[in-house]
């Protein structure tokens, strides 16, 4: 089997890989920002909870998170009477990846937010903006700009970590590769995984390039 044949067979499954990476990036940004806000808040309780959560997540292999979600969450929910054991495997994988992403993103967003000069907020207040307006129009855009390269790295990481989803049976690029491998009785295992690596590599390069372009364009404004 030539590599091009394999690639053609795998391409239809790229959307699922991208779905997992994209959804967990989006949700991870939401929860990561929440965690960052908790760490910056005045309430020590919130701070501690966020810090402990982050430590737990940063010290856990993604695979362990994945399996804990897949086997553990149904158990947890069963206790309060909800049956999620029939839930979509992709959904479990996105849950695990989101937990993974929010831990790391909170430590990206927090220093990025702190690096925006305090004077920006003060100036915004003196021209009559409320704190909310100041955050939305001035502070958060600048935070995103500073965090962008690391968020890009996170996106690339998520694409790669999502390849572990095959372990719970998700048929994305990696999952399909396993299927093809077992169909061909393991004879073409090297070209198969080579094809997977090419696909992932190209996706990573594309994301990296996209972030570079975005940073460059925004950089003309902000730095």
């Amino acid at each position: 089997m030539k590599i091009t044949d394999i690639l053609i067979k795998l391409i239809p499954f790229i959307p699922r890989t991208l779905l997992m990476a994209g959804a967990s990036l989006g949700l991870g940004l939401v929860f990561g920002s929440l965690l960052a806000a908790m760490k910056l808040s005045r309430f020590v309780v919130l701070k501690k909870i966020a810090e402990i959560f982050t430590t737990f997540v940063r010290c856990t292999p993604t695979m362990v998170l994945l399996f804990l979600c897949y086997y553990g969450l149904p158990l947890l929910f069963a206790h309060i009477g909800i049956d999620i054991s029939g839930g979509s495997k992709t959904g479990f994988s996105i849950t695990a990846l989101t937990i993974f992403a929010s831990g790391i993103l909170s430590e990206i967003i927090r220093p990025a937010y702190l690096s925006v000069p305090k004077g920006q907020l003060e100036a915004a207040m003196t021209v009559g903006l409320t704190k909310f307006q100041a955050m939305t129009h001035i502070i958060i855009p600048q935070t995103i700009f500073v965090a962008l390269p690391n968020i890009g790295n996170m996106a690339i990481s998520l694409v790669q970590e999502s390849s572990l989803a095959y372990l719970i049976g998700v048929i994305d690029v990696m999952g399909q590769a396993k299927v093809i491998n077992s169909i061909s009785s393991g004879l073409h295992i090297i070209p198969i995984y080579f094809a997977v690596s090419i696909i992932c590599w190209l996706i990573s390069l594309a994301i990296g390039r996209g972030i570079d372009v975005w940073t460059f364009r925004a950089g003309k404004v902000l730095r």
Partner: protein
Amino acid sequence: MIQFRNVKKAFGDNEVLKGINMDVNKGDVIVILGPSGSGKTTFLRCLCMLDKADDGQWIENGKTLHLHNASRQEVRELRQKTGFVFQNYNLFANKTVLENLMIGLTIGHKVPQDEARSRAIKALAQVGMLEKAGAYPNSLSGGQQQRVGIARAVVLNPEVIFFDEPTSALDPELVGGVLDVMKDLARTGITMIVVTHEIAFAKEAASRVVFMDGGVVVEEGLPKDILAAPKEERTRKFLARIIPEMATEYYI
């Protein structure tokens, strides 16, 4: 007329403001002088609610605003009638020059877009920065940024504009341009309270000079009086350090 009464502020054990009183009439240009640590900047920031004063009143039109426990609504009203020019300009890095001026009007003061734009253009012309309206702050020199900062405060049509050492962060050759803008502004009759070390500006444009030291007002009066013949020893010492000629004018 605005009266500031008994403004106090301590940072931990350090009592920076020990009870400042000041009267401000419409059109006044008050220059506050003093050594580092005298509390000048803190005074300004407390009046603008950028720092929370421990005590103090802002009395105007018979109404008293207590600086140490102002309600959110009172703070908003205060912000509506004041403008602030920062030592390090603090222009919004992610907005163009024009947007910097308009954003306070359109979002903060709920002014319609067209009116905001025309006011912004007028203010930019006033400070001589109109051709840079579409530029971003990071392409401007310090002096240019500060002029935009001044325009940003002016465009709000405030009752009083506070200037916190507006030229201290500038390269020497850019200071003059900003001071000229400020002098023009003073001539238009805007009420200005300026903390600065630029004695020439005080001489030319101030209607009153206030000397602060150690958290209190030591002396105040007309520029020609204070700068030429200060009554207090502390004032004399301070001025002698920054005006060489003062040192020889002891016994006139």
